[in-house]
């Protein structure tokens, strides 16, 4: 549910695409880099911009962390990154009661932690309570809040979670306080991983630098600012992965990383050269892979302060003024596609026929006049906030330039992540000072709820995610109702209606782009999965290296 646009977290040289790269295989034909891994050993090296903030599943709230955690840890269920179906993981089967309140999971036999202990239902109970506990300080505790009695447990009024039961060693029963359609999807998230108590109760918190899970790869070592090494776990319930080792290298500078990829020091890279860079494309063009993934980029308006508060015409004028087609098809081609609304393609509820706001200077001007600011006259100073990053700067500069053509002068505030979040989200009582802010959202599961609710529902008003402080009872009602239904068609219809309101009536954002990602893989890497949930969802256990395949 919550995810920052990774681009927002990356400093100086970030690119708009995703945070995390994956893939590649070991070996190097011509690389002067590093000792060549032993011939028979399968090593895969990919790049992260920076060290993951944490490898503790409960604390993880970003993609750098998840790319590692998702391969070291496993939850009850997992999300197939390609088909987006929910598959058994630690649980090999489950049943859901007809009233959608009780979930009964049967644990798989032979699931072992990396310390070779068998996983039992007690571990599930321990891990879920740990995620909920106040002392853990998890930013994603809310994932399990639908459980009956979760609130009492969090507040310390009860030592147990009423809706979390372990009738025997191999069975876990979860009872919700009310039906919650995406609950199973939430259990696939990295935060809901099953952890061994003996490791995670350590008061010295050694697990922070040496995580233990039951996933396909065992954590080996982490050298700050340099690399993280994972090795295949022989006892993995799904069978030992083909890769023997995985090296996650921390390289921040984009140009440097590209050179390293070409030199053979990386088997995969999450950033590609600019398409205009013919020299570079000649070298790696064949290794570029494109894929759409579920996310939407936008510029949020702060609806709680002037000049955007209560002035939809002004917001529409800004929307028409920004040339999204130029932005994504000429200026930064090959990545994203222009957005017509909120729900990205591939998600039930996406409406390709939604008119949106195609570039139209004349309309923009007339709406600007209608809004009370003919030719931009009378507008207060407006600042567009972005967090530092080259791609963010480029997009913001282009928006600035487009708005200038209809007479509107805005300034760009490029600030670090911490200051950015503070300025954009404000406090529960007070709106943030940013009038406009660029943001991106990647869906955590393939459901329109995963973008409409966190960003625009009044339940998440303020710092909880609805930074623009949008409040429309009609919209809220539609989103809430969709959540209690199970018929996908009916739900999609409701989401479509909600989107229509937020886009065409209220113009809550400048709708910029649907994400499409590009990534580089050496040809000898096989089994690559490019997930519409983002590249960080690459299941490393499916990769293999076939460098001599003829």
């Amino acid at each position, binding site marked *: 549910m*919550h995810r920052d646009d990774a681009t927002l977290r990356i*400093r100086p040289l970030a690119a708009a695409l995703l945070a995390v790269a994956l893939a590649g295989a070991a070996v190097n034909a011509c690389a002067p880099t*590093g000792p060549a891994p032993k011939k028979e050993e399968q*090593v895969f090296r990919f790049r992260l911009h920076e060290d993951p903030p944490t490898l503790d599943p409960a604390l993880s709230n970003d993609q750098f962390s998840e790319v590692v955690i998702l391969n070291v840890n496993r939850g009850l269920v997992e999300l197939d990154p390609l088909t987006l179906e929910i598959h058994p993981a630690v649980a090999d089967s489950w049943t859901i009661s007809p009233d959608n309140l009780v979930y009964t999971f049967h644990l798989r036999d032979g699931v072992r932690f990396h310390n070779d202990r068998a996983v039992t239902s007690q571990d599930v109970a321990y891990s879920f309570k740990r995620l909920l506990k106040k002392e853990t300080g998890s930013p994603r505790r809310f994932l399990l809040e639908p459980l009956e009695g979760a609130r009492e447990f969090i507040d310390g009024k009860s030592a147990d979670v009423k809706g979390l039961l372990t009738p025997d060693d191999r069975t876990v029963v979860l009872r919700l306080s009310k039906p919650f359609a995406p609950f199973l999807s939430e259990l696939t998230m990295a935060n809901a991983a099953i952890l061994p108590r003996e490791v995670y109760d350590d008061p010295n918190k050694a697990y*922070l630098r040496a995580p233990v899970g039951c996933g396909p790869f065992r954590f080996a070592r982490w050298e700050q*600012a340099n690399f993280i090494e994972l090795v295949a776990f022989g006892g993995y319930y799904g069978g030992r992965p083909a890769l023997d080792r995985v090296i996650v290298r921390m390289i921040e*500078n984009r140009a*440097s990383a590209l050179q*390293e990829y070409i030199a053979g*020091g990386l088997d995969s890279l999450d950033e590609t050269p600019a398409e205009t860079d013919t020299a570079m494309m000649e070298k790696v063009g064949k290794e570029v892979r494109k894929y759409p993934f579920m996310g939407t980029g936008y510029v949020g308006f702060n609806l709680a302060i002037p000049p955007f508060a209560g002035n939809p015409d002004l917001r529409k004028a800004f929307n028409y003024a920004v040339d999204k087609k130029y932005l994504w098809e000429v200026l930064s081609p090959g990545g994203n596609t222009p957005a017509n609304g909120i729900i990205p393609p591939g998600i039930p509820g996406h409406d390709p026929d939604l008119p949106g706001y195609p570039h139209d200077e004349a309309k923009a001007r007339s709406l600007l006049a209608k809004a009370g600011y003919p030719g931009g006259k009378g507008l207060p100073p407006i600042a567009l906030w972005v967090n530092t990053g080259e791609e963010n700067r480029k997009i913001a500069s282009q928006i600035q330039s487009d708005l200038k053509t209809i007479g509107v002068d805005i300034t760009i505030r490029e600030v670090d992540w911490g200051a950015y979040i503070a300025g954009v989200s404000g406090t529960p009582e007070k709106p943030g000072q940013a009038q406009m802010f660029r943001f991106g959202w990647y869906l955590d599961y393939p459901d329109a709820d995963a973008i409409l609710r966190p960003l625009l529902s009044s339940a998440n008003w303020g710092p909880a995610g609805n930074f623009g402080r949008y409040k429309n009872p009609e919209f809220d009602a539609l989103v809430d109702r969709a959540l209690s239904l199970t018929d996908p068609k009916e739900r999609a219809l409701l989401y479509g209606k909600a989107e229509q309101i937020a886009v065409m009536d209220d113009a809550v954002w400048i709708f910029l782009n649907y994400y499409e990602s590009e990534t580089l893989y050496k040809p000898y890497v096989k089994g690559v999965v490019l997930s519409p949930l983002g590249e960080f969802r690459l299941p490393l256990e499916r990769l293999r290296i076939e460098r001599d395949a003829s």
Partner: protein
Amino acid sequence: MPVLLAAATVVWLFVFCLPGDPARLIAGGQAADPDVLSAIQKEWGLDRPAPVQYLTYLGKLLRFDLGTSYIQKRSVASIIAETFPATFILAIAAVLLATVFGLGLGSIAALNRGRLLDTLVLVLALLGTSIPVFWLGLMLMLLFASRLSWLPVLGYGMEGAVIPLTSIRLPEWDHLILPAVTLSLVSMGAIARITRASLIEAGTADFLRTARAKGAGAARVFARHALQNALIPVVTVVGLNFASLLGGAVATEYVFAWPGLGKTIVRAIGLRDLPVVEGCSLFLTAVFVLASLGIDLLYVVLDPRIHYSSTA
């Protein structure tokens, strides 16, 4: 000591005055609800009044406790311990390169004073001090690593090798070359110039002529004479350049993805990981002070009078 205390105070004050609620940063951006926030404030002592926070901070410093990273949730000291060796190795390599080549170039210039070679060295030296390190690093990388493939593009090496966790990380030597050469240019020019000037002032050319006339081995005499006359100014220049060396190291580590302290600090600033910023800045200030002390000691060791009396 007073320098360090003052530095600690300045760093603390400065970080304390930053806008933005640290508790929210620790919680990981926007997601935090009030419960989580207050739990965090308590755990990290952010709810106490400023003077208490300051004193706690100083007390911890006395015990070499530099605090705990907001983001990584582990001690800043351990982060420094992990990343400083890389920076240290890079800096040492750069200083050595700069000194050896600086002394060499300076001597060549002094002996060929007024000739083409002299001018050439002077121009090179000036270029070296005028070039932006980050840009030079990029150019060297693109030329020697990307175009010519003579050297590795970036990194520390070793990520392919299996080494015991406990051992100190050493880079592979070929990975060290480009970053070290890039960084050495910060002080190489200055060293060459000061060497040249000192040798000229000491009348090296005349001295050499005399020595040769007396039949002494020219090379040995020159080496001894040159070192005696140029070492002290060179040490001074190295000392004076130490701060820019650290600055250069940041850019160099950034360009070459060198897993050092500089890269770590830049990251920490970006993520607002304040304890890391505080701790690392303080640590580097301490290193800087120590280095200055070391240079003062070197003076005593290198002082020609002491040298003469010991050989006489």
